[in-house]
């Protein structure tokens, strides 16, 4: 389904890719509206809605007061009225003030209405560590994924950011779209995968993981900003060490267990690398999902690394110690292939 046109492919960064995708969606469908803090005049604190207000006006791209309950709940009324709201919650950590609207209303109304009311809503937000400590560094995709009725997306590259945002906006189901702050701030030229972004609209479908590096000894499942770390380690080991297959999930819900299991069935070794909290989240789901499908006997080794159930500390020395960076990935590969 991914349309890859060689013509008019550019190097743009993640925030530009998202803004461009939203621009194309808004131009296609006048029912798409964007709401959130600083999304209009400023174009988003990370620039991922830049230019939209100038092009579509202040009603369709609306700067809101700091009132997440109100403007996230507005998405429900707007959706009932036939709009397709894209709501920005600046940092995913702020979900604590409006989870109600997201999980009890947006996520459940399609079901509670017996399928009669659709919620084509995108909750667009930023996660991940960039040095701002415990209340501004979380990923929380595991939190959303646990709650029924929400699709959950976390792209790793400019290419996927654009195509997955198109899929999210055109989806009739609600989608939580978690951009990574580190990726949003990363320079276009430094992306090593998914750097080429076609100019025209294209869709990266929800629920299809991407094998970004083929390998035969270990299946490494990851997503978002960790993909580049995993890739770097896999490339480093190419020829010299274990052959690592790196799977970029792209979406947490739906979880592409087909792709994961096909790989693990070959490698017999599963390593999950997840910047979210380790416990009770994505990594446990991937492991259990594989064990359920393939049977425990199909696996030789299993491991997961992530933020080990610790809030993110402020100091850089501490922050590095809790994050699953390249060294930790190397060590984990060592362990599962030992």
């Amino acid at each position, binding site marked *: 389904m991914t349309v890859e046109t060689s013509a008019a492919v550019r190097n743009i960064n993640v925030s530009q890719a998202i803004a461009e995708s939203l621009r194309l969606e808004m131009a296609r469908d006048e029912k798409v*509206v964007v709401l959130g803090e600083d999304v209009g005049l400023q174009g988003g604190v990370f620039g991922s809605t830049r230019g939209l207000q100038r092009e579509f006006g202040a*009603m*369709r791209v609306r700067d*809101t*007061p700091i*009132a997440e*309950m*109100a*403007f*996230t*709940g*507005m*998405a*429900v*009324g*707007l*959706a*009932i*009225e*036939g*709009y397709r*709201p894209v709501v920005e919650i600046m940092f995913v950590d702020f979900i604590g003030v409006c989870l*109600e*609207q997201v999980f*009890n*209303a947006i996520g459940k*109304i*399609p*079901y*509670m*209405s*017996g*399928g*009669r*009311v*659709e*919620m084509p809503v995108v909750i667009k937000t930023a996660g991940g560590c960039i040095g701002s400590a415990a209340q501004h560094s979380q990923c929380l995709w595991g939190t959303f994924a646990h709650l*029924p*009725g929400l*699709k959950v997306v976390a792209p790793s590259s400019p290419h996927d950011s654009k195509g997955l945002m198109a899929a999210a906006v055109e*989806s*009739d*189901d609600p989608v939580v779209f978690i951009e990574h702050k580190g990726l949003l701030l990363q320079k276009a030229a430094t992306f090593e995968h998914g750097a080429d972004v076609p100019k025209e609209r294209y869709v990266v479908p929800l*629920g299809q993981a991407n094998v970004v590096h083929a390998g035969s000894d270990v299946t490494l499942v990851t997503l978002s900003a960790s993909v580049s770390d995993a890739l770097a380690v896999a490339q480093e080991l190419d020829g010299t060490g274990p052959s690592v297959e790196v799977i970029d999930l792209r979406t947490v819900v*739906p979880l592409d267990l087909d792709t994961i299991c096909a790989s693990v069935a070959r490698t017999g070794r599963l390593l999950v690398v997840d910047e979210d909290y380790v416990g009770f989240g994505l990594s446990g789901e991937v492991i259990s999902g594989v064990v359920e499908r393939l049977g425990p006997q199909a696996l030789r080794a299993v491991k997961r690394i992530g933020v080990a159930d610790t809030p993110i500390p402020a100091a850089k020395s501490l922050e590095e110690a809790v994050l699953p960076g390249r060294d930790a990935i190397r060590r984990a590969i060592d362990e599962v292939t030992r």
Partner: protein
Amino acid sequence: MSTPTLLERYRAMLEMRSFEEACQQGVPTREVHGELHSAIGQEAIAAGMLGSLREDDAVVSTHRNHLHALAKGVDPRAMMAEIFEKSTGLCGGFGGHMHLFDKRLRFSTTGIVGASLPVALGHAYAAVLGGTGAVAVGVTGDGGANIGSFHECLNIAGAWKLPLVVLIENNEWAISVPFSESTATPTLAERAPAYGAWGKRVDGLDVEAVTEAFAEAVAHARAGHGPAILEATCYRFRGHYEGDLDLYRKADEKAQRLAERDPLALTRQTLLDRGVAGEAELDAMAAAASARTAELLESVRRDPSPAPATAHDHVFVSGR
């Protein structure tokens, strides 16, 4: 829109009361196997809404929502079937009494206190986006007026001049907590200036007073002057939910209110006093309403329950 006469409003109130009484019958039988919140005693407020709203106006209600649904024109049969957990229900039995959705009529509810207003605000924004001239009514109880979303929504509606009508049914109680102990001001309407809003407190047992005040509130919002707060005072005649022992209220206070301040009795007396109708006519009207509802209930009871195999449908409308 023609405004219903007092007699017509009285008929509507009778229908509302008998609807609520019919629903109660499902509780001991466990046909309604969850909580049921009755709005008996609050009929004059919903009946006062009649005639002011257009089909494309939105109403977003709470856990105590049946009468607002009826006032908005939601099909009573589909409603009752939903409340009785039937596959023929408004939501196929998936939503239940606290979660009624009628997309065409822009009617919805929520079981979470305070969650109605943000949804109404979204409808109000849609009205402005689409330039439709519609308004959105968000309902809350007195207790719900103390939760944060009340403030967020009224402030936004005030700042953006959105056509939001906040209808507060102040029935003096939030479960076991009296209004006076949970609220900083003697009334809720007096919060209006904090939001640049229109505000009024009205006797919610007096259907004519509600009619007038509600029409005024809607007109204010529809004219583009921004939000309106209408506080309608009333009294919760039943426990918080059917089955609530309701031991926290003085029994005599309650008995007195029921005896002396029943909005149906008050309206009936007005009709009699004014010679609009006689005892016999009004009795017949009441009997007819009861009979119609009894028939409805009987018919709904024959409907099937939703098929267990469908329980995992509708999580995603896309089917996956």
